[in-house]
C-alpha cells in the first residue's frame, strides 16, 4: 500500500533560540507511516506529544530535525504549503472556535472560497459535504443554535468541502455529550469507509480508538506501542502504566482472566465481552 504520510525521524521542540536548547523534545524521534485510506487513532496522556504530532501533518508545525512527507511533499517546502493544506484538513477540539460565519452553508464554504474555487462548484461541494455529515437540512440555520455534535459536524463539512485526502481530528469529541460524540464518530467512520478519506483521530476515549484500523500510542514524545486495536488493548498493564484507560468491557475480561477464567485475551466492545462471558456463564 502507498504511504500517504511519512514521518521520518522527527524531533521537535518549541522555540528555536539558543537558550531553549536545554528544553526537552516534545517529539523525540518519531517514525510513522500512514497508508492512504487508513484510519489511525493516536492515544496518549496529556503532554505525550500527540497533538503536536498532529500539527505536523499539515505544516502548522515543522520538525526541528527530521522530515514529514505528505503524499510525497516535504512539509518544509514553503511553496507547496497550499497543496499540503489542501490535502490534509484539521478539525480541532472546540467547535465554537472553528465557526466563522453566521449561516451554516457560508461557514462550510469558507475554506473553499479561500482556495479560489468557482462559486458554482463551491455550492455543489458545500451541499455534498453537508450531506456527507448529515447536516444538509440545517444549511440555512445559524451555527450558534446548533448542538455541540452538530457544530462539530459542520466544522468537519467545512474541511471535507475542500476535498482533502486526509482529515486529522484533534480530540473532536472532548466537549460533546454522548449523542454528539456518537454523531461525530459515525460521520468520521463513514468518511473513511465510504469516501476512502484517510483519518487520523486523536482521542482520550478508548471506545473511539478501538474503531480504528491501527492504534498508535505516544508517551513523552515517543511511539511506545503500535498495532491493531486488539493488539494494543491486550496490553492492559502497559496502558495503565502510561496513564491510559481501556474500555470497561476490556477491563472486566482482563480482571476475570487474572483469576484464571478461560476467556479471550482481548475484547473491545460490549458485544464481544458478552459473547465471551456467555462461554463461561452458560455452563
Amino acid at each position: 500500500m502507498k504511504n500517504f504520510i511519512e514521518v521520518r525521524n522527527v524531533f521537535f521542540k518549541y522555540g528555536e533560540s539558543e537558550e531553549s536548547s536545554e528544553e526537552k523534545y516534545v517529539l523525540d524521534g518519531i517514525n510513522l507511516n500512514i497508508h492512504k485510506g487508513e484510519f489511525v487513532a493516536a492515544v496518549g496522556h496529556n503532554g505525550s506529544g500527540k497533538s503536536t504530532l498532529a500539527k505536523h501533518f499539515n505544516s502548522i508545525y515543522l520538525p526541528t530535525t527530521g522530515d514529514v512527507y505528505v503524499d510525497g511533499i516535504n512539509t518544509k517546502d514553503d511553496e507547496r504549503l497550499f497543496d499540503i493544506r489542501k490535502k490534509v484538513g484539521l478539525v480541532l477540539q472546540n467547535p465554537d472556535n472553528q465557526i466563522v460565519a453566521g449561516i451554516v452553508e457560508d461557514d462550510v464554504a469558507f475554506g473553499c472560497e479561500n482556495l479560489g474555487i468557482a462559486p458554482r462548484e463551491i455550492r455543489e461541494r458545500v451541499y455534498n459535504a453537508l450531506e456527507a455529515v448529515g447536516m444538509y437540512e440545517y444549511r440555512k440555520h445559524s451555527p450558534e443554535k446548533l448542538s455541540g455534535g452538530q457544530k462539530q459536524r459542520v466544522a468537519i463539512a467545512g474541511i471535507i468541502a475542500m476535498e482533502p485526502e486526509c482529515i486529522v481530528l484533534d480530540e473532536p469529541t472532548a466537549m460533546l455529550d454522548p449523542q454528539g460524540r456518537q454523531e461525530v464518530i459515525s460521520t468520521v467512520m463513514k468518511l473513511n469507509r465510504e469516501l476512502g478519506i484517510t483519518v487520523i483521530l486523536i482521542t482520550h476515549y478508548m471506545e473511539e480508538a478501538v474503531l480504528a484500523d491501527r492504534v498508535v500510542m505516544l508517551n513523552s514524545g515517543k511511539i511506545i506501542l503500535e498495532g491493531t486495536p486488539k493488539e494494543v488493548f491486550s496490553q492492559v498493564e502497559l496502558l495503565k502504566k502510561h496513564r491510559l484507560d481501556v474500555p470497561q468491557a476490556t477491563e472486566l475480561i482482563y480482571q476475570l482472566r487474572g483469576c484464571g477464567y478461560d476467556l479471550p485475551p482481548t475484547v473491545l466492545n460490549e458485544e464481544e465481552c458478552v459473547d465471551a462471558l456467555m462461554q463461561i456463564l452458560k455452563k
Partner: protein
Amino acid sequence: MSVIKAQNLTLVYGKGTSFQKTALSNVNFEIEQGEFVGLIGHTGSGKSTLVQLLNGLLKPTEGTVYLNGKNIWEEPKKIREVRFKAGMVFQYPEYQLFEETVYKDIAYGPKNMGLSEDETDKRVRSAAEFVGLKRELLYKSPFDLSGGEKRRAAIAGVIAMDPDVLILDEPTAGLDPLGRDVLLSQIQNYHKTRKNTIIFVSHSMEDIARISDRILVMNHGEKLLFDTTQNVFAKAEELEKVGLRIPQITKIMRMLKKRGINVNTNILTIEQAFNEIINYLGT
C-alpha cells in the same frame, strides 16, 4: 431541611422579543445536605442554566430557589453571599485564572468574603491540599502550570470559599484518563471530609455512575428524572431516547440478563460487575 430547593423554576431568555426561548420550565426538586448529585442531560438540555440559577448568576423568570431554606432573591443586594455559599466551578475554569501567583488566585474568593489574612491563608493551604497542588506551586504564576494543575488551582479557588454547595460544571472535560481519575478521587475525598453538598455536571456516564448518590436528568429544559443512581441507570431506554446512555459495564450486565443469565443488572462499576460474575459462577 433541604440545602437547595427549586420550586417551579422557569427561565425564559429574551422574553417578549422574537428571540424568546424557554431554557427551563417548571423545574422542582430538593437536594439534601451532604448529598452528591450528578446532573446529566444532552447539550442544550438546561443543565448550565439550572446551575446558574442555583447560585444566583441568573434570576428565574418564575419560581424560587431556596438555599438553606431562604429565597436567594429575597434581598437582591445580598446575592453575592449566595455565590459564596453555592460555589461554582465553570467549564474549563483554568481560563479564568488571572492573578500573579497561584496563591493569590486561590485567595481571591476568601478575600472578597472579607476573611482575615490568617483565615485566608488557612483556607488557601487547605484548598490546595484537597486538590493535590504542591506547596511550591503556590508561588508560581498560574500560567506556568500544566493544564491539569491549572484546572486544580481553579477548583481550589472555589473550595477555598468553603461553600455549602459546590457546583462543578464538567470538571474533568479534556483531562486524560489518569488526570480524570485523580481529580475524581480528590473531589470524593473533599466531599467525605467536608460533608458538604456537591452538584456534579458531566457527560461521562461512567464518572457519574461512580460517584453520585442521586442523578438529576434534564431534557429540553425540564426535569426528566431525579432518582438514585441505580434507579436512573436502570432506565436505559429512557436515557437513550434523550441522547444519553448507560455506562458500558451496566449495559454488559443487561445484555447478559437478556441472554438468559440471571445476574443482577443494578451494576455501576467494573468492581461490582466482577464480583457479581464471580458470585454467579460460584453458585
